[in-house]
């Protein structure tokens, strides 16, 4: 049958012809350009205008930037080197002042400490950011919050050790008190014990211990010496680290059906979100000491960190609440039907999913927080922008503008852009849907 058929329709081709390459005008760079740049007359015009714009930018930027003025010691020096009054970058200012923009007045012989801190930050973050690293590294991540301020501020080693002990004691109270007192009472007791430990026992104990075993680092003169990008990092890292747990607690409070708890959380969140950060920083610089018991006078950087943390935890709470609200109700009910109690359900079922949903929001809050650290220059702390103002007031560099701000902008850009790219990577990795 098939034989006869094959004979009757002899024009049917039996062998496959090799594919022919598509015409050169639709593939490769030419095809791509035709499709994306010159698909219609209007598109062509737009492309040409855009190209002209890009050319204009680069024709100004490259000749401006490509002057070798790195060794200049003043703006006048630069002008002499290039022979131009304007239109030439004066990189000498970066060469001479980059240490201040990065570290502020941090003592020169101690600068290895912030650098080590940054390296350790990478080590501490690595197991959190990349899940294929050994889980044991998380112990170091847990210790990092206590190592970091100690390295920056110096002083005796016993204060951070004893502060960490407070958490250990609280944990032990919960662990052993749970059977005797029940989980709720044990938790309250743990908080009370830890607070008593920190507020009343920590400083005398650390005095005693440091007089017996004086181990420590050389303390820095005053925390006003911490400046430049270092200050932005200190405030940013601490506030980011603290605002996430506080934000989670606030979000849970706002979602809870306990009326008083809910009202308190909503009031706090809406108040903080309703006022600009700068007013909170004014509170930090002028009012916070009035709210404290008479005689307390604690560090301005610490005060700023407290206010920035409160500020960003309110935003964090809203982001996480969004994640909680996006979870289907079945997840909560599923947790209940398995017999899990509130905290177990939160820890094992709700939070992992809610946090995953809110990753983009959390990271953009982090980015916003890191950018907002520049506001401390308004209350007189010397962050990069504060230093830029100071350098521009220096007689040698009056009139320097673009180089300085471009340098600072690039510093911030690298950090913030890096964070946003990481969040996109994380989103892709955690995506379980198709």
């Amino acid at each position, binding site marked *: 049958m098939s034989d006869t058929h094959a004979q009757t329709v002899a024009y049917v081709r039996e062998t496959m012809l090799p594919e022919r390459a598509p015409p050169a005008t639709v593939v490769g760079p030419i095809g791509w350009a035709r499709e*994306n*740049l010159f*698909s219609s007359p209007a*598109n062509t015009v*737009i*492309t040409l205008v*855009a*190209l002209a*714009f*890009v050319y204009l930018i680069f024709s100004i930027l490259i000749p401006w930037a490509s002057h070798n003025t790195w060794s200049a010691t003043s703006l006048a020096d630069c002008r002499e080197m290039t022979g131009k009054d304007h239109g030439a970058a004066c990189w000498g200012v970066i060469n001479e002042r980059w240490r201040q923009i990065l570290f502020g007045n941090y003592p020169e012989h101690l600068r290895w400490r912030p650098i080590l801190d940054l390296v350790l930050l990478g080590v501490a973050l690595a197991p959190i950011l990349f899940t294929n690293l050994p889980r044991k590294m998380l112990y170091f991540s847990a210790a990092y919050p206590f190592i970091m301020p100690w390295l920056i501020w110096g002083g005796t080693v016993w204060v951070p050790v004893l502060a960490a002990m407070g958490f250990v004691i609280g944990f032990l109270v919960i662990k052993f008190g749970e059977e005797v007192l*029940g989980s*709720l*009472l044990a938790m*309250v007791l743990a908080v009370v014990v830890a607070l008593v430990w920190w507020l009343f026992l920590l400083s005398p104990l650390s005095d005693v211990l440091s007089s017996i075993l004086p181990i420590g680092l050389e303390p820095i003169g005053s925390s006003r010496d911490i400046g430049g990008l270092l200050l932005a990092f200190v405030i940013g890292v601490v506030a980011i680290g603290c605002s996430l747990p506080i934000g989670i607690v606030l979000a849970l409070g706002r979602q809870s*059906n*306990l*009326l*008083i*708890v809910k009202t*308190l959380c909503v009031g706090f969140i*809406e*108040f903080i*979100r*309703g*006022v*600009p*950060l*700068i*007013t909170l920083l*004014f*509170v930090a610089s*002028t*009012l916070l*000491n*009035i*709210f*404290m*018991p*008479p005689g307390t006078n604690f560090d301005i950087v610490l005060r700023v960190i407290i206010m920035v943390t409160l500020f960003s935890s309110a935003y964090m709470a809203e982001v996480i609440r969004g994640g909680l609200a996006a979870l289907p109700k079945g997840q909560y009910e599923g947790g209940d039907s398995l017999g899990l109690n509130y905290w177990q359900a939160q820890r094992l079922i709700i939070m992992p999913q809610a946090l995953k949903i809110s990753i983009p929001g959390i990271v953009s809050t982090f*980015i916003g927080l890191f*950018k*907002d650290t*520049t*506001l401390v*220059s*308004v209350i007189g702390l010397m962050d990069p*922008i504060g230093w*830029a*103002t100071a350098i*521009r007031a220096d007689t040698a560099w009056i*009139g320097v*503008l673009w180089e300085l*701000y471009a340098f*600072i*902008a690039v510093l*911030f*850009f690298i950090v*913030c*852009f890096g964070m*946003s790219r990481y969040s996109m990577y994380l989103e892709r990795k955690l995506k379980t849907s198709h």
Partner: protein
Amino acid sequence: MTTLSDPPKESFRLSMLLYDTRYRSMTIQVIALIGFSAFVWWLIGNTAQNMAALGKTLSFRFLWEPAGYDINQRLIEYSSQSSHFRAAMVGVLNTLVIAVLGCALATVLGIIIGVLRLSRNWIVARIMTVYVEMFRNVPVLLWIVLAMAIMIETQPAPRAFKGDDATASMIFDAVAITNRGVFVPAPSFTSGFASTGLNWLIVLLVFAASIFVVRLVRARATATQEATGIRPTTWYLQLGLLIVPTAIVLLVMGLQWTSPELKGFNFKGGLHLRNSLIALWLALSLYTAAFIAENVRSGIMAISKGQSEAAGALGLRPNRIMSLVVLPQALRVIIPPLISQYLNLTKNSSLAIAVGYMDITGTLMGISLNQTGRELETLLLGMLIYLTISLLISAAMNVYNARMQLVER
């Protein structure tokens, strides 16, 4: 035979406060309330003690004392003899001015950039991506300070406009951009009422009335279309109604523009937009526009392609698809984050203090605070004002959300 008896009545035990779910939530709330009250009590106690030690009492009487400082940009009558309260009001108005100007410019720029970022022209889309990333990842304070420095240091001084060998020239003989600010023509009325505010109010009322009439015309056109299937052509009527009444009012009241003129070492006449206003306005708008562009882009991308394809299958033309199908749905996604960007811009306008723009942070929480030494009162008032503005904006957002919510059947 068994006798029916009541179940033994459960007596209340103290441990039930902890282990019985009926009472436990009560216990937790009472503990929370006690803790919170104790905290507030502690704060108030500390504050009272510290204030007493400093010899201060909480009093808002300073608000009615003469402020004793000048404010260079004011919308209402103000002199250094006016009260601190008056100064605060000038500050609030200045905050509102920068907020309104900033929101308007940021919206326009943001929409253009967001749409262009979706352009099929690769190079345009890339340029817009660079813009968005550049502005989003650098602190707004840096943009503000940079804009101020550019205005002061790179713009020509007024005397550069002088003489025959002037190195700078005015744009269209009307706008002068100098290092002391931007001078633009100022409108004024020759034959209106004495009060400028009243004149503008009349113009505004007439314009609002004509918008109302235009809406009536549009509603009638829609009614006709629904009755007969043919939409009457009304665009010339609408355009005429929109422009003519306002133009007549302006003409009757004798509107004229006074251009700035160089007199001595500075420009006189016209409207003087100070450097601080321009720098703050541009920096805030450019920064917020990057965020709005992202909102616009995600809003448009959120509308599935099937929507526009279905509309095309119904025979709608591309511009009708955009205005009738895609845009109404995209707006529902875009507007809530857009309003929260407005909120952010308003709060960021408090950075005015970095460039010396006299908004509420600069007057009440700046100079008034320093002159009277009343940190607690001024900061409380300032926060209250910002809180009111924010809550008003979010109330507007809630009303909008409620109106735009999908009506599900």
